[in-house]
């Protein structure tokens, strides 16, 4: 069963009289237990797709489903953990208080929150800073708090936007370990990232987007067998797509 199903999704942004197409007729699926990397240049439409999946942006046309439920249904988000791109969690709360808030919003009881919080803080490496105000934390530490809030409800699906943003090399290594551990637990993971080495080391499959269109969909195993590296493959595919578009427009 597809945990994520996107069918002919289009997202347009109106800008005065003109309209910008961020996602153009996009279709793909993510199966249970997979780790899928969502790649593309800046402005390729990754965040717009993720926003549409989470119900933050209304699709212009097409449809999307999480766990078989239409994304417009609140129930579709029941088993999802979401990390937005660089969120600045309340500067006047501590990570522990932040996690309690997101636990409550997820519908967890206080005893469940207490039980989960320490484990999640440990897992994301925030335990030593659990009781200091968020405003004293570094960007990387705030990103770890973001990851922690996404894990609070023991999600079956993790959707992570620019997950490695702000993380140092040790943070990125910890992230890889965390993502693999979450997959071991049974979670499905769908994330966007510009860190291709990280994508290559944890993903089963990648989707590459350019100008809102899906231009490649391959397994990492396949890429490893036929290409020098994911980076080479990514650059070649995106360049080819851009050249083709330029050719068409000419």
């Amino acid at each position, binding site marked *: 069963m597809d945990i994520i199903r996107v069918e002919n999704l289009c997202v347009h*942004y109106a800008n005065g009289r003109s309209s910008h197409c961020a996602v153009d007729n996009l279709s793909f699926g993510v199966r249970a237990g997979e780790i899928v990397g969502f790649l593309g240049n800046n402005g390729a439409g990754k965040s717009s797709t993720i*926003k549409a999946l*989470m*119900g*933050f*942006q*209304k699709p212009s046309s097409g449809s999307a489903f999480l766990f078989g439920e239409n994304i417009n249904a*609140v*129930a579709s*988000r*029941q088993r*999802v*953990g*979401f*990390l*937005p*791109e*660089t*969120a*600045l*969690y*309340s500067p*006047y*709360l501590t990570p522990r*208080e932040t996690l309690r*808030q*997101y636990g*409550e*919003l*997820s*519908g967890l009881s206080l005893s469940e929150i207490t039980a989960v919080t320490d484990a999640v803080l440990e897992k994301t490496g925030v335990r030593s800073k659990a009781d200091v*105000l968020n405003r004293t934390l570094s960007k990387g530490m705030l990103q770890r708090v*973001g990851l922690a*809030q*996404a894990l609070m*409800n023991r999600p079956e699906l993790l*959707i992570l936007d620019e997950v490695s943003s702000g993380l140092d090399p040790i943070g990125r290594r910890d992230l890889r370990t965390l993502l693999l551990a979450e997959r071991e637990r049974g979670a499905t993971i769908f994330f966007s990232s510009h860190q291709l080495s990280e994508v290559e080391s944890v993903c089963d499959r990648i989707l590459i987007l350019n100008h809102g269109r899906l231009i490649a969909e391959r397994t990492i195993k396949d890429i490893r067998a036929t290409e020098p590296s994911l980076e080479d493959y990514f650059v070649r595919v995106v360049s080819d797509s851009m050249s083709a578009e330029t050719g068409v427009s000419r």
Partner: protein
Amino acid sequence: MKQTLVICKSLIRTGLLETFRRKEAWVVIFLTILMTFGAYTFTFFGVSGLDIFVKDMALTAVGLFTTIIGSVIATRQIPDDISRRTIFPILSRPITRDQYVVARAVAAFVMTALCFVMMTTVVTLLLAALKLTFGLIFLQYIWLKLMAVMWLSAFGVFLSVTLSQSAAFTLCFMLALGSGAFSRTLLLTVGEGNPAVNWVITFLYGFLPHYALFDTTGKVIYGWKPIPAMVVVSLTIYAITISAFWLYLATRKFRGQSL
């Protein structure tokens, strides 16, 4: 309903922590004490009969700071979440946008109400220490002020999903403070023009906020008897109805908004 209450509780708890850690509440309480005590210092120079002046100064400070802090809190709730991008993890939970808007408005109401109650308590204790007391009407003053805060919170949240944060604050604050003047002007104008104009003025009078209706400061400081219960009940119904109206508009506006 139960889920909305859970969301309200969570947002109120974190909102209160933020309000007190930002020190805004302490600042307004300190300023209120300063203004009240400042007015009382005139008695040190031999000026007598200043009871009404001191009470007026104290309640004016409480009213003004409640309006300021209420406008600030209500108009920043949702814009803060959007600018910090914390709205995404919040709305990624199984909660609807309507629940979120209502919870934010309730949180704004509770935070402002708590600041108001704290200011009022401090002022009452301070005045009591200076041997100045209020009559029974003071209880009605507190209740009606809380109703006004409810209106202010709903209106502020509506403005914040419609305008930019700074524009929302300015408009909310101006309409709250100037509502009395607007209403009086409209009442003076009605009956002067033709029926069509009168109809427009009547509509405007009904549509414009009437924050000043809830203000009984003058009656409290001059020691009036309590106002009839029917008036208090009518104003309570009006406050609930108008707050529900602004919240309905806010949820409608926010429902289809791209984030």
